[in-house]
């Protein structure tokens, strides 16, 4: 087990270097950030040259990358173009997005798995069909539609909530965005759980457990659910990463200044330190989430063991 974890951690190093370099190249290839700073007029060459040397933009790409990486290992993530250290941006954005992602994941787990179990055990009944229909509707309506609608109806029409989340982003204000963000994955979790449960419900070990005289509830939760959750856990693991990075649409609709929004700003203003810095952290989040998912398999299914 320990050796397996160490091996996995070592594998992360090349992945990490590769991804950061790719992102660096992509951000660099988009254009010249200095030009954009001068508005609708031609940049004055002398000032532009000074700015380029400040941001190392006058050096070859590989050297820029090395200089940047060197800084990162000393904990220096560079500055956004408005002079604010990227680390400060991160310290503000990550907690907010983490709160939002956790709310979404909790909603997904509780409601998604509950609905999945109920429909999986009642295959083909009216309840099952109606939930299936609902999930289809949720999957086909894009986030920006549900988000904007919910914001307008609850925020402007009924006045139940403030349409824009305040900068501190307390949990109470993040509930609606959390629901909007969770909806899509919620539908997937429901369908995954349902498929898995209905497949395992007829398995031999369930029949054996029932034959031994165990109560139905205990069989469903301890035996059936535990085995059926493996695909769901896999999905949830990658989803945590996705929610951290992919909350862009929801964050912009509800004025949440989190990771997605900062990334978007960094891309629009072509500020490579911001984009690469945030993505670097996100890559680590993804890699760790994957590792945790793999280790959870062993917990769920004793037949899986890591030597």
């Amino acid at each position: 087990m320990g050796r397996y974890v160490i091996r996995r951690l070592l594998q992360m190093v090349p992945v990490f270097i590769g991804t950061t370099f790719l992102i660096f190249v992509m951000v660099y290839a988009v254009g010249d950030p200095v030009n954009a700073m001068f508005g609708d007029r031609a940049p004055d060459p002398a000032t532009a040259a000074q700015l380029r040397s400040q941001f190392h933009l006058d050096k070859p790409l590989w050297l820029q990358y090395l200089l940047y990486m060197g800084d990162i290992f000393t904990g220096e993530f560079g500055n956004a173009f408005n002079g604010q250290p990227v680390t400060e941006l991160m310290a503000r954005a990550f907690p907010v997005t983490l709160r939002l992602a956790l709310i979404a994941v909790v909603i997904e787990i509780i409601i998604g798995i509950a609905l999945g179990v109920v429909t999986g055990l009642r295959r083909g009944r009216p309840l099952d069909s109606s939930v299936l229909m609902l999930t289809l509707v949720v999957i086909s309506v894009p986030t920006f539609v549900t988000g904007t609608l919910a914001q307008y109806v609850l925020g402007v029409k009924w006045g139940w909530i403030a349409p824009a989340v305040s900068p501190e982003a307390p949990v109470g204000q993040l509930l609606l965005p959390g629901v909007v963000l969770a909806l899509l994955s919620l539908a997937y979790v429901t369908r995954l759980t349902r498929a898995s449960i209905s497949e395992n419900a007829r398995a031999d070990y369930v029949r054996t457990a029932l034959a031994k005289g165990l109560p139905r509830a205990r069989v469903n939760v301890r035996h059936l659910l535990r085995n059926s959750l493996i695909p769901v856990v896999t999905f949830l693991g990658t989803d945590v990463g996705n929610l951290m990075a992919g909350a862009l649409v929801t964050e912009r609709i509800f004025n949440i200044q989190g990771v997605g929004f900062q990334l978007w700003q960094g891309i629009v203003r072509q500020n490579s330190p911001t984009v690469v810095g945030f993505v670097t952290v996100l890559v680590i989040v993804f890699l760790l989430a994957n590792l945790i998912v793999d280790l959870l398999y062993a917990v769920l299914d004793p037949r899986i063991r890591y030597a």
Partner: protein
Amino acid sequence: MRGATRVTWAVGCATVVTLAAAGCGGGGAGGGAAAGSDAGIVRAFWTDPQNPLEPANTNEVQGGKVLEMTFRGLKRYNPRTGKAENAVAKSIKTDDQQNFDITLKKGWKFSDGSPVTAKSFVDAWNYGALVTNKQVSSYFFEYIDGYDDLHPENESAKPKAKKMSGLKVTGKDSFKVKLNQKFSQWPDTLGYAAFSPLPAKFFNNHAAWLKKPVGNGPYQIDSYTKGQSMRLSVNKKYAGPDKPKNKGVELKVYTDQNTGYTDLQAGNLDVFDELPAGQLKNAERDLGGRYINQPAGILQTLSFPLYRKEWQTEKAKQVRVGLSMAINRKQVTEKIYHGTRKPAGDLTSPVLTKSGGYEPGMCGEVCKYDPKEAKKLIEDAGGLPGGKVTLTSNVDTGSHRQWMDAVCNSINNTLDKNGACTVNPVPTFSEFRKDIAGKKLKSMFRTGWQMDYPLIQNFMQPLYYTDASSNDAGYSDKRVDKLIDEANAAGEKAAVSKFQKAEEIVLKDLPAIPLWYQDGNAGYSDRVSDVRLNPFSVPVFTDIRVK
């Protein structure tokens, strides 16, 4: 089986209940805390300024908003008329349009209590001009003698001095300025934020000043959280006449214009000056008439790469006139921009007013939609160079894609030829600028001009003088250069008509086709009144009253 489902449902309900409870608790607390401290405060939309808030390093509206509230220079542009009026300056005198004697009014102070002196101005201008300070608005100081020593044209050259030889402090509140050329309207440029004075603290403790800028304007900055908000309160030491009619301003950063618009409708935002293009159609109705649309000093034009041979001939000039007449400006401004743009009839802007040189009829027939005449002109000239034209612009902002499609269709319909004009969209503004700067364009491209100060000089010299900083078409005409030089040497009244003579020549040569004048828009809540925009489309915060 039944038992299990009951258990799960119970768990589900319990969670829903706790979530709802948490929701009510959170919402209530937030609402209560905000209401108490907001009395008399104007809440306005903001996005993070692009650069640190130094006066000579701010060239966009969002940063300009703050500078307009926190700084006053020698002059200020009247928010209603756009005329430059004395603010800190008592008098600016000259006999030869090149040497100026400037005297300051007494009693002006920065909000930290230090006095505003001649040195505050001279030090600030020298700081703004010095190339190593990397200020994006350095070029404002280029007319001052000695600017080249601080800001050499050559990219790799080091500055030779730290102080411009043309600036001399002659007393506590007087200084002399020598320009490197005659420029009669130069005093009128001094209302721009780049010419603001700076307190000693700016130079002694720069980092602290950037965190909380100190100026001499009607408001002072209380707190500034980058990327979130800025709170300003009334500056008690302000010596100017336009004292704020409210208790302060809170600038709130929004992730998205649409979110700001929703918040405005919900009554959580008072002044919103960046209406999303998609909402313009409904804004007036949605906001119950609390909607402003007024001229903004921005002109959109279509320029031609005159640095290429095929566009330099007399015949090409005739083609340009034909192309101009093939564009249905009225339709585009109404259908795409819902009246927030007006068809252009000259190369200036309505904010200049007629006395300042705005003359909407100057372009005449050339800017009128006349497909028959357009077709005749282009065919007489032997058709389009190379048989077709392309139209290039960035498409990341400003609904540029839509009007480019409309203009190209209009040209194609005029010539009865599909593919006579094609759109060449460039994804980002900076990439587009790079192509323009590198003189890589082969056909028509968009050029927008946002004025630096409301003078006709600013609509002519930077754009059409030989080798001027924003002469993107590469236009050069000796008569125009001579008229501009004469205008700058003439008195202020004579200057305007000289500039107009130059403008007439430019419109004959047509290196750039005028498209439309852009307006500034804003919406406001029913909690405030007396909201208006100044000629730079920045809300005049000092006038706003909170009910």
